[in-house]
């Protein structure tokens, strides 16, 4: 108890009064399933994407006495989901931009915009770049992804100004959209897909679809070439069926064994090299190899794969017990790197943290992944699965996975496109508001 009160005074010193006042003003939404007695323990969450934001919110729901701090570099968050619609010209980045106000005001989360520059797991302390020090009883790290520039010869930070990845939405998305607008009719858009795992496995194929949607309306003689390092992709038959119906002859997909694996890019020549030859295109969108967000490696949370191994029950790092890693950065068994999986992991993690702090046993986790992809703005497809923990790690519950049916009527696809919009509104609200 002495330890906690020392931390309490440290917190007042570093965070000032405002944080304590918002915490006190918060009217809690109690979760009937978790009433851990944590006596105002302190949890710090680093990273305010879907995983981190959801975790901060659900920590406060699990136990309103917890003091939760969310550290996030940016003032605003731009969602990956629906960012392909910006490329199609039917949404703007502004539409997809979220603030942290509701987490701050409605949930009493202390949102600190800054960067963690050092972490001391033994002393349970974090140093921010402005030298503020935050102490914690439990730490959750949700750093998302970083582009692994070294993994693709010829690609690098400067290359992104010519061959945008647009895989972390923002200025890169605008750049790719501009390039599509400036391209002549009859041009070729080249999109490359790295070896799995990467963020949002169906995302490249939704992107190819929505780029084709734009081109079909404005530049109908153009083509989309997808060079994929892998042999298959999620919802593959549904995408191929949709492409045949909506964009006949416009999208070509090349798997890894047929020359889809990119080995090198030549930025100046706008050329991409594979084992089977090279391709030059008018617009080149490199979806690059990825790894866990920078801070994961800096804190020793990532292994040689570049991703973070975790315990499937508590989502604690297996390299640093007492630090939890969630979201795209984590190696979470069969769960894909999706906003939905991040949201689901965050809730499991929040409950586990509350239970661990309260000296309770952590129960069996259950995860849901539900992802929609748009083949066009009015043609949606989906996949969903429920995952549990087995001796093999996080795996699918038997029979609990399905995709949309093939050969469904147009009306069904329209409904799923509407469902996708409903999904987007609710997952954003569930995570950030």
């Amino acid at each position, binding site marked *: 108890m002495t330890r906690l009160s020392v931390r309490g005074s440290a917190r007042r010193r570093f965070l000032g009064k405002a944080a304590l006042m918002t915490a006190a003003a918060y009217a809690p939404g109690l979760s*009937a*399933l978790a009433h851990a007695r944590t006596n105002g323990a302190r949890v710090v969450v680093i990273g305010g994407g879907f995983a981190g934001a959801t975790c901060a919110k659900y920590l406060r729901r699990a136990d309103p006495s917890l003091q939760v701090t969310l550290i996030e570099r940016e003032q605003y968050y731009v969602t990956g989901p629906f960012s392909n619609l910006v490329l199609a010209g039917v949404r703007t980045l502004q539409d997809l931009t979220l603030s942290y106000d509701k987490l701050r005001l409605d949930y009493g989360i202390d949102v600190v915009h800054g960067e963690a520059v050092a972490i001391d797991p033994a002393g349970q302390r974090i140093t921010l770049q402005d030298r503020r020090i935050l102490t914690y009883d439990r730490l959750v790290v949700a750093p998302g992804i970083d582009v692994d520039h070294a993994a693709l010869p010829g690609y690098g930070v400067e290359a992104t100004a010519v061959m945008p990845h647009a895989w972390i939405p923002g200025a890169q998305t605008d750049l790719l959209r501009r390039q599509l607008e400036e391209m002549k009719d009859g041009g070729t858009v080249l999109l490359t897909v790295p070896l799995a795992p990467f963020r949002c496995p169906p995302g490249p194929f939704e992107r190819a679809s929505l780029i084709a949607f734009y081109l079909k309306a404005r530049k109908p003689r153009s083509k989309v070439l997808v060079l994929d390092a892998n042999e298959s992709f999620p919802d593959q038959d549904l995408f191929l069926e949709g492409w045949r119906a909506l964009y006949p002859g416009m999208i070509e997909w090349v798997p890894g064994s047929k020359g889809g694996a990119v080995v090198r890019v030549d930025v100046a020549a706008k050329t991409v090299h594979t084992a089977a030859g090279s391709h030059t295109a008018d617009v080149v969108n490199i979806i690059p190899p990825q790894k866990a967000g920078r801070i994961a490696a800096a804190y020793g949370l990532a292994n040689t794969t570049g991703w973070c191994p975790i315990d499937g029950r508590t989502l604690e790092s297996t390299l640093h017990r007492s630090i939890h890693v969630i979201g795209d950065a984590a190696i979470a068994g069969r769960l894909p790197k999706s906003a939905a999986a991040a949201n689901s992991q965050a809730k499991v993690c929040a409950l586990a943290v509350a239970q661990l702090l309260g000296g309770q046993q952590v129960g069996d986790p259950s995860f849901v992944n*539900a992802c929609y992809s748009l083949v066009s703005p009015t043609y949606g497809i989906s996949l*969903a699965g*429920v995952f*549990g923990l087995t001796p093999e790690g996080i795996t699918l519950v038997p029979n609990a996975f*399905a995709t949309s049916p093939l050969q469904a009527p147009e009306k069904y696809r329209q409904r799923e496109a509407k*469902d996708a919009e*409903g*999904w987007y509104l609710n997952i954003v609200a569930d995570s950030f508001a």
Partner: protein
Amino acid sequence: MLADTCAMCHGTDGRSAGVLDSLQGKSARELEREMLEFKHAGKGRIMAPIARAYSDDQIRQIAEYLASRGGKK
């Protein structure tokens, strides 16, 4: 915890903002019956595989929890 997974698509505590069904204001019995239809009759679009993951008993508990959250913030 099981019921919180619904929130991703149906909103926190089942308060839906969009076209997806709001779970607020439904009785436990109603929620349970719908989930069992998804599970056993394969009804619904995305819900069938999700409902199949849970035992009938878990479905009843989820329904009771969600109904208890109805109308609350």
